[in-house]
């Protein structure tokens, strides 16, 4: 008997197969990376190649939910649109009732509850997206949260979702340094370096959004991204030369 027909049924070994399959759908989406610095939060996504006649400004994977929170997703774009719309309404509803902007954790919790509800209703399938939600609370603390189709959420210092997420996460684990997070430039560079690991043809296929404390979200233009990429490449060359030098010394 197959246990993946109706979402509400557990399999004998305790799996919700529809949720697992949703996570497979997420793994097919283009990569998104998020880094939480001390004074800046960064989200970077791999820009999918568009057809010649398509206007690429209509494909935006980074959406702002409120002045102080924005998110990127990996997976089914249509599902993400629904989640983003509901989250935007909830942000305003929170402002209306509580007279304060929603904390990043609150809106993450709200999105996760929606996702969980769809794993426990009959006739519905789970949302096929994972999202990275970043922003600043009104007391100034930066946050980065990741949600997945099962409705769980966790806070992260840096994370990646989508295609090749594992590679990117390993890169982040190796190269994340707490001291670097004090500098805005280093935080942004870490996100770009992580994306460059898996993106083909370099800076042209990267879209990056940053938010500094008390400022609104800024999507970097292509030239700014190219600047960072060139800086990263020069640093890389320097590091290679250093390595070569030390090697020849001990010949």
């Amino acid at each position, binding site marked *: 008997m197959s246990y993946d027909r109706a979402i509400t049924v557990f399999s004998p070994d305790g799996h919700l197969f529809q949720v697992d399959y949703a996570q497979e759908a997420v793994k097919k989406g283009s990569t998104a990376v998020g880094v939480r610095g001390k004074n800046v939060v960064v989200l970077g996504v791999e820009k999918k190649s568009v057809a010649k006649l398509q206007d690429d400004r209509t494909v935006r994977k980074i959406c702002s939910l409120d002045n102080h929170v924005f998110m990127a997703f990996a997976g089914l774009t249509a599902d993400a649109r629904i989640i983003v719309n509901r989250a935007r309404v*909830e942000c305003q*509803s*929170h402002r209306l*009732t*509580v*007279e*304060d902007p929603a*904390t990043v954790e*609150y809106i993450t*919790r*709200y999105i996760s*509850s929606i996702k969980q509800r769809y794993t426990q209703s009959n006739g519905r399938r789970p949302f096929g997206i994972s999202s990275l939600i970043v922003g600043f609370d009104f007391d100034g603390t930066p946050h980065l949260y990741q949600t997945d189709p099962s409705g769980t959420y966790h806070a992260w210092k840096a994370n990646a979702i989508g295609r090749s997420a594992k590679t990117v996460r390993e890169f982040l684990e190796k190269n994340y340094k707490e001291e670097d997070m004090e500098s805005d430039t280093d935080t942004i560079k870490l996100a770009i370096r992580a994306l460059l690991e898996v993106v083909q043809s370099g800076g042209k296929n990267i879209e990056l959004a940053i938010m500094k404390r008390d400022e609104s979200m800024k999507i970097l233009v292509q030239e700014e991204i190219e600047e960072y990429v060139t800086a990263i490449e020069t640093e890389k060359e320097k590091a290679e030369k250093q390595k070569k030098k030390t090697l020849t010394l001990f010949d």
Partner: protein
Amino acid sequence: MALFDVSGYKSHSELRGQILGTGVGHLIDRPNQQFAVPVGVDPSGFLKSCSREGGVSIDLNHGTTTLAFKFRHGVIVAVDSRASAGSYIASKEANKVIEINPYLLGTMSGSAADCQYWERLLAKECRLYKLRNKQRISVSAASKLLCNMMLGYRGMGLSMGSMIIGWDNKGPGLYYVDDNATRLSGHMFSTGCGSSYAYGVVDSGYREDMTVEEAYELGRRGITHATHRDAYSGGVVNLCTMQEDGWIKVCKEDVSELIHRYRKGMF
């Protein structure tokens, strides 16, 4: 809910949901739906028939005096303690201050039943907020929740004039919320039928830089003079103060003794 299903009330609640918003998320426990007003009952129509021309006149008066004012060192809250049912004094020691939590107070004037029920419901919502969000609810949010509860039953004869007093990370907070879903933030409010007398006393004696003792005196005097002239206020003055680390109960003094202190030449 059995009554809900039996009464066939769904269509009205759907309409209410459209107007007031469904899926409010974690913020409101949908207290509106705890009362399914059965089909055929029309509270607003019934009330209209009770006023003057209709025949029987049921005069819903707010027999009380409560006052609260902000000053440099916090917020003073003073209430009387007489509960009246028409001209019958039901209690001389009614408690008109509800302690929502150690940093939030609510006062009651109007119908005792309405005040007690809705403010206790507010206390439940504030507790749930703290559990869900790991942070105390702000005074403005608490007063907003109460105001939205009132909005759900607007025109149906609720009678409540209350002040929400608290201290959150924006400092001291004082809000007036009533059964019309009016919600006002301010520095000084007084409610109830003795409020005019209390306003007179507190307005003339108020200075922003009062010491704490002077502020206590002013609160006591306001209530005492109001109970002296208003028939529906009396009993004891319950005085509390709201400070940064929460509220404290200052005193509980009988107005018949206080009035002698304040009006030495009179008796």
